[in-house]
């Protein structure tokens, strides 16, 4: 975990950390609709706009479908644009998610991950995010409020890069992070804009240089445009890495694209993201003392998947316990990430034993002893043919 420079830090929850990043990035247009647990992101931004601290156009729309549609339109005029959502809102945006990536708009959206209806649950899991994973967006998970602030800044720097031009999601856990106060250092507009100066969509709408955006593509053209997206998202990985390194040079905080925590001397790893990674960072030293040779593989960059890093960290381990907080109904493993890991294992000829665990669905409570149970399961290994639904009442 990054050392917090206590003198400069102030108490912010992740939602407010993100709102501050948007302010420091001098975003031009914010188009959003309130949804729990994201609401206080845009609430805080509208406060900044009302107070004149952020000179932005704040578009109040009637739904998330409109929020993202307006954000795309704004982005193609060359305005730096932001939106935020969660859960049903992200689901309602679904068709527009594909349009944002298909049109190659350099948007940034924060997602305070929350479970999906039915039944109605306002609480955290990651069903919303994993439902959106194939929409062609770059996806980063943050595990602290500070990382969320920093990642939004990094995101504008790489999405507006002409070598990338794709939208990005910064995802973090609803409630567990969105409403949890942590120390956060904010850097102020001058330094942030110097690091991430505005670079506009290259074909931006301009009456002097007319273009058509969003036309139909017949069978002779559609495939090539989709292939461009394949190349773009794969090609974005080194640029995302480069931006993270530059960020570290400038601000002293870097995260890498995938993190292996306490991996030295570990036979087994627990692969997880966001708040669970933060919890494990707190618990692992104690678990290690108790003889569990377990480390943490923290997924930060999810799309594009950091396969090389994954191979580097998992080539010599015995067991990889993959924690999913989303369910892939009827899939070989019911954890979506576990399925991807199984694919990566075959593709790269890796030897570890996969343990697929689903946990925390609908924010089912996970305490220290629950993380201990997972660490024990990883340490003991053994073949688990089926996904383990941890903590479900049978």
């Amino acid at each position: 975990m990054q050392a917090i420079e206590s003198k400069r830090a102030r108490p912010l929850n992740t939602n407010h950390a993100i709102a501050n990043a948007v302010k420091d990035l001098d975003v031009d247009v914010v188009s959003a609709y309130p949804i729990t647990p994201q609401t206080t992101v845009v609430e805080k931004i509208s406060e900044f706009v009302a107070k004149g601290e952020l000179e932005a156009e704040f578009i109040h729309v009637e739904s998330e479908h409109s929020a993202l549609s307006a954000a795309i339109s704004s982005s193609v005029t060359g305005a730096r644009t932001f939106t935020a959502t969660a859960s049903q809102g992200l689901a309602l945006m679904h068709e527009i998610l594909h349009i944002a990536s298909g049109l190659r708009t350099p948007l940034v959206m924060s997602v305070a991950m929350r479970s999906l209806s039915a039944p109605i649950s306002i609480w955290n899991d990651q069903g919303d995010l994993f439902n959106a994973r194939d929409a062609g967006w770059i996806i980063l998970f943050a595990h602290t409020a500070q990382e969320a602030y920093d990642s939004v800044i990094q995101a504008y720097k790489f999405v507006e890069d002409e070598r990338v031009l794709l939208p990005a999601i910064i995802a973090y856990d609803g409630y567990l992070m969105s409403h949890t106060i942590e120390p956060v250092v904010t850097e102020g507009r001058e330094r942030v804009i110097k690091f991430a100066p505005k670079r506009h969509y290259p074909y931006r709408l301009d009456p002097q240089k007319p273009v058509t955006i969003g036309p139909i593509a017949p069978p002779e053209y559609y495939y090539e445009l989709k292939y461009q997206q394949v190349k773009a998202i794969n090609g974005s990985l080194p640029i995302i890495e480069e931006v993270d390194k530059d960020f570290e040079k400038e601000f002293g905080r870097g995260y890498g694209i995938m993190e292996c925590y306490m991996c030295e001397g570990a036979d087994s790893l627990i692969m997880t993201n966001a708040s669970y990674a933060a919890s494990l960072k707190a618990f692992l030293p104690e678990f290690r003392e108790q003889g569990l040779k377990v480390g943490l593989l923290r997924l930060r960059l999810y799309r594009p998947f950091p396969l090389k890093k994954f191979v580097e960290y998992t080539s010599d381990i015995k067991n990889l316990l993959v924690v999913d907080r989303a369910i892939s109904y009827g899939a070989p493993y019911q954890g979506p990430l576990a399925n991807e890991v199984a694919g990566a294992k075959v593709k790269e000829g890796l030897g570890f034993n996969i343990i697929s665990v689903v946990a925390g669905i609908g924010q089912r409570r996970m305490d220290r002893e629950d993380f201990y149970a997972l660490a024990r399961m990883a340490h003991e290994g053994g073949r688990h043919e089926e996904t383990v639904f941890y903590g479900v009442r049978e």
Partner: protein
Amino acid sequence: MGERLLSYKEMPIGGVIVNPGNSLEYKTGDWKVLIPKINQDTCIRCRICWYVCPDNAIKELDREYITNKGRKYKISYDVDADFCKGCGMCAQECPVKAIEMVPVEVE
């Protein structure tokens, strides 16, 4: 065909059209099965076909025509095969049944 199509590297990203107005180059009538055949002798030059065509594919030409009954018209109608989709609305609406939908000849 035979026309070389652009590779993914050559196409502007996101399907952006950077040369506006190029829809003129796109011949939208290449998939029709039937095409209108206008009988210039029966036609009374009422212009209804020209009005109803959804693709502006009925052309009103300044071409003089004398019918087999000796009536002289200053104009004639013709079909723009590049853009006619063969929907048959002109034939349906023609008050004197001067338009017949006939199969397109495939070479």
